[in-house]
Each structure stands twice: as C-alpha cells, then as structure tokens.
C-alpha cells in the first residue's frame, strides 16, 4: 500500500466555540425577555398576595362573608362574590346561542359574501374595547329593557357581559368545529344521517374540548371585566346589607372587579389591602374556572380517544 497517498482536506469541521458571539447575545436577549415576562407574572402575584396578607391572615373568612362598609375592619366582598357568580351564571346560560351561531356559520351557511361579512364582523367585535359594550348595555339593557332587567341590575350586567363574550364564544367554537375532520362527517352522512344528526352525534362531541376551552376563557374574561359594569352603573359600594341571592337580582349590585376598582381608588392607603385581598379572591375564582375546564377537557378527550 506504499506509494501514493491522497490527502483530503476536510477543512475545519470543529465547532467554532466562542465564534458565534452574535448568536450568544441574541439568545441571552431572548432568555432575558422570557425571564422578564416571568418576572411580571411573578411580581403581580407576589405583590397582590403580599398586600393582601394582612387581611388573608387575620380576617379572610370574615372578609368573604361581610358586605361593604366604610369601616376598614368590617368591610368585605360578600356582595361582590355573589354579584360575580350571578353574572357568570347568566353568561354561561347564554353560551348555547354563541355555540349554535358558530355551528350555523361553519356547518350551514354557504360561503357567500354575507357569511364572510358576518365572520369578519364577529372577529372584529371581539376586539372592540369592553367599555364600548358598556354603552350598549346602558342603552339597551338598562334603559330600553328596564321593565325586564329592573334597570341597573345584576341581570343587565350579566346580559351585557354575555354580549361582550359572545364573539369570543363564537370564534373559538367555530374554530373547534372547523377542526373536526371532514372524514367523520362523510362517514356519518354515508350511513344515512341527516345534517342535524351528523352535527349532534359527530361534530359537537368531537369539537367539545375546543368549545369548552373557548367558553371557559369567556367566563374568565366575564369574571374579570369591570369597565362595562362601571358604565351600566354597578355600585362599588352599597350598604343595603347582606342580601339574598334572589333579592340581589332586583336592585343595586356590585361584582368583585368593581369592589377592587372601588377599594383601589379610595384615597386612604389602608384600603389597598382590601383591594389586594379582593384581587386574590378574584384570581382564585378565575383559577378555579380554568381548572374545572382543564379537568373536564381531559375527561372528554380521554373518552373520545382511547
């Protein structure tokens, strides 16, 4: 084998350590922004909990059960919790309209300019600022339909927020319906199912996890909205006392976000703790709603899959 030996120049295939300074800087910047985003999340939760700690540790149960009061040692958010729960209930009750609307757009409507116009409108309605929905609520539910809602009542608030989240429900449900594989529909049609039967037995069950996620996002959003309530005349503070669930539908009402806004805007610093404690309650409520959705979603997916 002696004689000619060919040398192939492989060049330098070793990783160039340290050469990629730009890449390193870029990565550091990216990681820094992620850390900053985390820090924001952390700071919000840390600060709110810290501010709320006095009330949480000393009189949390009391805080949950007491109505609003001008005495900081007695004031609580019982009315707000009830108001928020009732509002959420009304919002949930209107979900079928949004879901059915989404099914209409995806399954029934022909692809015409009017359908497309509706789709664009709904998408854009989702981006209209929430306070504008407050104006709608004020004009329609508080004034025009006073006989039905009793004016600035929790019912008017619930309906206003229901309208507010309707586009979100329609959009997410429509996306879930669109994601159902066409082969499922074909299979069912091929066996002699009517359109309604195909929707009821195939499309809706398959889209349910996605619909659920959308509706839960909607409930969470409705729980946290304050601006529209402000416009339709929710009270931040009232002293009619600890009203019953049913009694509360009649007149003055408040909701947790209104409590928070009210506490936060009071000039005396002592009320900051109340605002923070109310925020904790609201965050826990939103968290529970999300948790319920996650569990339900997992169960449905399991049932659908294997």
């Amino acid at each position, binding site marked *: 084998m002696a004689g000619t030996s060919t040398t192939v120049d492989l060049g330098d295939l070793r990783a160039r350590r340290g050469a990629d300074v730009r890449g390193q800087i870029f990565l550091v910047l990216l990681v820094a922004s992620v850390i900053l985003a985390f820090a924001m999340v952390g700071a919000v939760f840390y600060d709110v909990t810290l501010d709320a700690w006095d009330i949480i540790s000393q009189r949390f149960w009391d805080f949950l059960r007491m109505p609003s009061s001008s005495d900081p040692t007695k004031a609580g958010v019982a009315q707000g919790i009830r108001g928020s729960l009732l509002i959420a209930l009304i919002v949930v009750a209107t979900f079928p309209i949004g879901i059915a*609307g989404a099914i209409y757009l995806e399954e029934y409507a022909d692809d015409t300019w009017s359908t497309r116009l509706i789709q664009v409108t709904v998408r854009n309605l989702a981006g209209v600022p929430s306070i*504008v929905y407050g104006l709608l609520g004020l004009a329609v539910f508080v004034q025009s339909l006073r006989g039905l809602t009793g004016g600035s009542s929790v019912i008017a608030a619930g309906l206003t927020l229901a309208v507010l989240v309707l586009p979100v429900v329609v959009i997410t449900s429509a996306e879930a319906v669109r994601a159902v594989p066409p082969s499922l529909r074909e299979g069912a049609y091929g066996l002699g199912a009517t359109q309604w039967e195909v929707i009821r037995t195939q499309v809706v069950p398959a889209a349910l996890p996605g619909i659920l996620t959308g509706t839960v996002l909607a409930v969470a959003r409705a729980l946290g909205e304050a601006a529209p309530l402000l416009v339709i005349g929710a009270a931040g503070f009232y002293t009619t006392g600890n009203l019953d669930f049913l009694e509360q539908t009649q007149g003055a009402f408040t909701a947790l976000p209104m409590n928070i806004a009210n506490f936060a805007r009071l000039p005396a610093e002592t009320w*900051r703790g109340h605002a923070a404690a109310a925020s904790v309650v609201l965050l826990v409520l939103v968290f529970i709603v999300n948790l319920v959705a996650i569990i339900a979603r997992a169960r449905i997916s399991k049932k659908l899959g294997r």
Partner: protein
Amino acid sequence: MPTLASRAWIAGIEVLLFLVLSLGFALAEYFVSGLFTDFGPSNFWLAFVVLAGWNAWHFAGSQTALGAAAGHYVLTLDGEPASVLTTAVRQLIRFGVLYGIPVLAIDFDLRVGLLVWLAVAVVIRSTPAHRAPWDLAAGTILASDIGPPQGLAPLPVVRDAGDLRLDPRRAKLDRRASRLMFLAGLTSVVISALIVWNIFTEAWTFVADDEFSWGILTDRGWFPRDGEFDLSTLFVGTLWITGIAMLVAGPVGLGVAFYLSEYASPRVRGMVKPLIETLASVPSVVLGLFAISFIAPEILQRIFDDIGIFSLLAAGIGVGILTVPIVASISEDAMRAVPMELREASYGLGGRKVTTALRVVFPAALSGISAAAIVGISRAIGETMVVFIAAGGNGVFNTDPVDQGQTITAAMASLGAGTDQVAGSGLAFQSLYFLGALLFVMTMLLNIVSDVIVRRFRQVY
C-alpha cells in the same frame, strides 16, 4: 357470555350495593349539609349541588374502597374478566348519575325521594340502545330479552329501492335544527348592528345638540360637567399610554415569541407558554392595582424624583404587561407558520441559528408580527381599568408622562362611574357615546387592518 343465573346474582348484588351506598351517602350528605345552612337558605342548593357532584364523581371513578370492592366482587362471579369489569365500572357510572336524584329528595322526605329515584331509574333503564341487559340494574332482569341471542338471524338482504323519501319526523327535526342555528347566527348580526346603531345615534345627538360647537372640542382640558370637551387632552393621554405599553410589550413579547418558536424544546415550550398565558387571564383591575401598589412606589419613585403614585407612565407599563401575552402569542403563531423548509434551506447554506431567526424567519413572519403589534395597539387603546385606576384621571391638558393624565377610555369610565348625575347635565351623557363612537371606529379600523394582514400570511403558507 354469563349465564342467566349469574346475571341475576350480579344484578341482585348491584342493587343491594347501590341501596346501601346511596343511603350512606344520603345520610352523610344530610348531616354535612347542616354545615352550609348558616349561609342562609338560598345557599342550600349550592351546597347540595357541590356535594352531589362530589359524590357522583367518586362513584363514577369507583375511587372509593367500596366501589373498587364491588368491581372485584362482580368480577369473581363471571368467567369473562374484561367485559365484566368494564360492565361493573359502567354500572357504577350510571349509579353515580342516578344517585343525584334520591339525595335531592331525601333531604326533604324519604318517601318522596325513593319515589323520584324509582321513577328516574325506570326511565333510564327503559331507554333504548343500551347494550346488554346486564348493563342495567336489576329491573331489567324482568325484561324479555335476557340471554345471548341463540343462533343469529342473518341480516336481511335488500333487493329493492325501498322508499327514498326521508322519515318526515327526522326531516322535520333537521329543518327545525337548521332554523334554530340560523336564528343563533342572526343574533350575533343583530347585536353588532345594535352596537353600531345605538352608539352612533347617541353620538350624533352630541354633535347635533344646540350647546355643541366645534370649539368645545378644542378648548384645552376635559371637564365634561363644565362643557369642556377637548379631545387633544384625551388623545395625548391615549398616545402616551399606547406608546409606553408597546415599548414594554413589543420587545418582551417578540423576545418570548422568538424564544418559543425558534429555541425552546417542546418540553420547555409546554412549561413556558402556559405561564405566559396566565398573564392573559389576570383581570385588568388587578393590574391597575399592581400599577399603583408596585410599579409606581417600588420602581418609578426610585427612578424619578417628582413622580406621584398616579401617572401615565405607571398606567402605561401596567397596560404593557397586559399586552405582552397578546403580542407574544400572535407573533409566535406567525413565526411557527414559516415553513420548516425555509429554515432548513438556511441551515443547509451554513446559516447559524441567529442568522436563520433574524434573516429568514423574521422577514417571513413580518406581516404576522406587524399584525400582532396592531392588535396590541388596539388593545392598549381600548384598555380601561388600568388607566382609570392608575393614571389619576385628571382632565388637565398634560404632555408629561410622569404626570397624571386622562385617556379616551378612562374619561368614559369616569363619566360612567357617575351615571346617575351624568344623565341630567347637558352634554356630558352624550359625550360618553361620542367617545364610544370614536373608540369604536379607531379599534375597528386597526382590527380590520390586522385581520387582513393575518389572512394574508395564513394564505401564503
């Protein structure tokens, strides 16, 4: 297939087990609900629903020791482990559903409770399409279709066209459903029409009013009760808030998007993304509170000497934090929509990750990223509560971000917070709608632009 005798045994044992268990739970429920009664009578139902749900859950998963034991017991009775076990579990699920009803009534009257339970049980059991007789509880044992089919009849062979019309009942149902869905779809159209109609007619009454002159829109200062409606005051505030918010949300959101789409492993992404998204579910009032209890005192007052608790800067940063997840998620979608082949082409030419990200992915995703920015801006313009709480709400014309200021939304909120007084005081009430119309037009335009952009990048790839 289990024999008739073993079926009878299984059914008998199941019924006994269910009776014992439901009685036990009902009693427990009765005493436990006592704890809740001091909430007032109206909360009793809440207590009931919570407890019944909890019980049904346990039943359904057969997570109780008794449930598990029951499954095993039934198992030993029959030779087919798999099918009997699944049957047992399904049985328990059905009991869980059934269980809710006796409890409901037992709390008031034992006899009524049993009657209701029996009625529901009969209804459930007689529903069609249950698979096996032993799938149901004891009642079914009396039914005639017991026992495995003895020698299956072959499926009928069809050799004619038959009736090619649809069963009128099904056709009617189909038509009704489609009409109902159409009505639901119509609702959303009606609502959008209502919003537009209502806001613009009310806004028109503002402009058409005798007291209105274009001059009141330009006298410095926003004091609606004094008839001063200077829009530039609000525009300056809105511009500052939006600008500051985008300065915060733009870089952070984009950085997060780049990291998630180009660098993060699926595992890391699975952990980081939900955490960022929790930020999206934080209500804006809470961020308003955060702005005055943390951002202003802990950060801004250490940097600026003469800044108060309330300032445009603090509010802007608060709004920015709220906007981060929106910018991040839309830009990430856009980056992930960039086809892998483009990246591979860049790597194939010896491009580094950073080069690929900045020279290939970024330009390809640029339209989507600008859509994210536009949606972010639209959100920032429309954000109300953070500004209402943290910007001070002072109607004096001001161009200094470390001072207090007023935005379009916060001005509306201030007007709204005193709705009752507003109603009678000249143009103030109508100005609310005038601002609403302004806001509506601005955000709608931004949304439409971003929508068009997003559609386009979806179509390209």
